[in-house]
C-alpha cells in the first residue's frame, strides 16, 4: 500500500495495524502451509520414484511376456485373443484433500479379470497368452496408481510454487509496505499532534498577551 494513498488519520492507522496483524498471521499460516506441502511433496516424491520403478519393471516384464507369447503362439493368435476381449478396464475417479488442495484419487475397479471372464475360450488359450494378459493387467494397474501419484506430485509442485509466491509477496512486499504505511501514519499523527501542541501554545501566548 503506497504511503501516498493513505490519509494519515487515527482510523487509517487502526486499519493499517489490523491489516498488518492479518498479513502477519496469513504469512505465518502460508509459511506453515508451504513447509507442510514441501514435506508432503517429498513423501509423494519417494512414492513416485518407487512407482516409476514399478512401472518400468512391470513394462519390461509385460513386453517380455508378450514377446514370448507372440513368438510361441504367433502374432496372429495373440492379436486374435486380443480381439476377443470384451470387458475394458474401468477406473473410479475421486478426489482427496492435501492441506486444502484437491488431488485426484484413482481407484482400479475392473482391471484384472479372471481368465474365464476375459472373453476368449479357456481351453484353447495357451499359458503364454494368459501370462502376457496377466502381465499387462498388472502394468495397467501400476500405471493407474502411478498416474494418481504423478498428478498429485505435479499439483503439489504447482501449489508449493503458488504458496511460495504468496509467502514471498507477504514477507517482502505486503508486510513491509504496510509497516511503512503504519510508520508514516504514526509519524504524521505525531507530527500533527506536535503541530497542535505548538498551535495551542501560540494561541495561549496570544490570549495571555
Amino acid at each position, binding site marked *: 500500500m503506497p504511503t501516498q494513498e493513505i490519509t494519515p488519520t487515527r482510523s487509517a492507522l487502526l486499519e493499517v495495524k489490523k491489516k498488518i496483524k492479518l498479513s502477519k498471521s496469513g504469512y505465518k499460516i502460508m509459511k506453515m502451509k508451504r513447509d507442510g506441502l514441501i514435506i508432503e511433496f517429498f513423501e509423494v516424491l519417494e512414492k513416485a520414484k518407487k512407482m516409476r520403478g514399478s512401472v518400468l519393471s512391470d513394462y519390461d516384464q509385460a*513386453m*517380455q511376456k508378450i*514377446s*514370448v507369447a*507372440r*513368438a*510361441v503362439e*504367433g*502374432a*496372429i493368435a495373440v*492379436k*486374435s*485373443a486380443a*480381439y*476377443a476381449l*470384451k470387458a475394458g478396464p474401468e477406473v473410479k475417479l475421486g478426489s482427496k484433500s492435501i492441506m486444502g488442495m484437491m488431488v485426484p484419487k484413482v481407484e482400479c475397479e475392473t482391471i484384472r479379470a*479372471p*481368465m*474365464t*471372464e*476375459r*472373453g*476368449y*475360450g*479357456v*481351453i*484353447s*488359450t*495357451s*499359458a*503364454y497368452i*494368459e*501370462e502376457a494378459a496377466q502381465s499387462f493387467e498388472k502394468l495397467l494397474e501400476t500405471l493407474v496408481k502411478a498416474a494418481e501419484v504423478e498428478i498429485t506430485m505435479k499439483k503439489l509442485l504447482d501449489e508449493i510454487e503458488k504458496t511460495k509466491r504468496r509467502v514471498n509477496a507477504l514477507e517482502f512486499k505486503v508486510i513491509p509496505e504496510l509497516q511503512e504505511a503504519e510508520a508514516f501514519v504514526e509519524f504524521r499523527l505525531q507530527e500533527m499532534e506536535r503541530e497542535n501542541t505548538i498551535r495551542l501554545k501560540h494561541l495561549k501566548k496570544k490570549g495571555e498577551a
Partner: protein
Amino acid sequence: MLGRKSGGGNYAYVSAKVKAKKTSLMGDDAYGKMLMMSLPEISRFIGESGYQKEMAELAGRIEGIDLIEHATYRNMARAFSSILHSSQGELRDMMSAYLTKWDIWNLKVILRGKTYGADAESIREDLVPAGRLDSTMLDRLLSMETDKEIIAEFGRMEHLEVPPEAINAYKADGCLRDIEDALDKLYYKRLLMSTDRSSTPKRLFQEFIRREIDTINLETILILKTEGIRGDDVMKYVISGGREIDKKLATQLANADSVSAAVNDLAQLDFYEDIKEALGANTGSLKDLVAGMKRYHIGQAKKFSHLYPLSVIPVIDFMIHKNIEVDNIRIIARGIESGIDRDTIKGLLVI
C-alpha cells in the same frame, strides 16, 4: 462325417509322400544356425529351405517378421491340404477330423475379428487354411453378415452343431468364450469318434489323441489353478476322453488348493518325468511345464511312426513336425526381433 466309414485308405501312397516331405523338414542343427542369424538372414535361409514360393507371394503385401510368420503358415497349410487331398477312405476321414482343429482356429479368428470390428481383408490375412476348409470356403464364412450366420454356415460345412446353450450364452453377454470352448470339446469328441480301435495303428492314433487331451486338460487345470479357480468352475473346461487324466483325477486336480498341492497327484502320469523339473522349479510360470508336455507329446508321435509306417501315425507325425518347424522358425525370428536372449529362445524351441 461322424463315425462314417469310407473304406480303407491309400496308406502306402500317402505314407511314401509324407516320408518324402519329411526329409525336407529342417533338422535340429538348422535351428542352431538360425539362432546365430539376423532377421534378413533368417528370411533368406528359410527362403532357401522350401518357403521361397510363399515368401515371394506375400512379399508385396507383408514385410519383415510378419512376412516370415504368414509365409510359413501358408506353406504349412499347402502341405497339409496336399496330403489331405491325396488321401482316400478312412485315412482321409481321420486326417480330416484331425485337421478340423485348423478350421476351428480359423472360425475363431473370423468370429473374434468380426466382433471386434476388424475389416475383412485383415481377417483374411490371418487365416490359415490348413484344415478341411479351403480359402474359398473360409471366404464364404467371412462374407457372412452376422455371427449367427457364420456359426450356422460353419456347422453346415463341418457337419457339427454348436450346443444351443453356448449360443445362448454368447447372445447374452457377447463373449465368444462358451462357443470357443464348446467347439474345442466337439473337436476332440468327433476326433475320437472318427477313429475305431480295430487295428493297432488306429488304436495308437486314438491313444495319441487321448494323450493330447490329457496335456490340454492339465494345462487348462493348472492355468485356472494359478488364477485361484477351483472345483466345478475348472471341471467345466475339462475335455472328456483323456487317457490318464480321467474324470476322477481331473476332479482331484481341480480341487487341489494350489499347483504344488496337485504335484503328488501328477506323479502317476506317464509324462510326469517330462514335467517334473518344471513343477519342482515353482517359478509361478507354466511355460516350462507346457513346453515339457509338448515335448512328451511329440516324442510319442515320433516313437510310433517308426513302428507302423503304413498307418495314419506317420502322417500325423509329419503334420506335427511340420507344425513344429513353423513354430520353431517363428519362435527364433520373433525372439531375435524382440531382443529375447538366445538361451531363452532355445528354451522355447521344441526340438
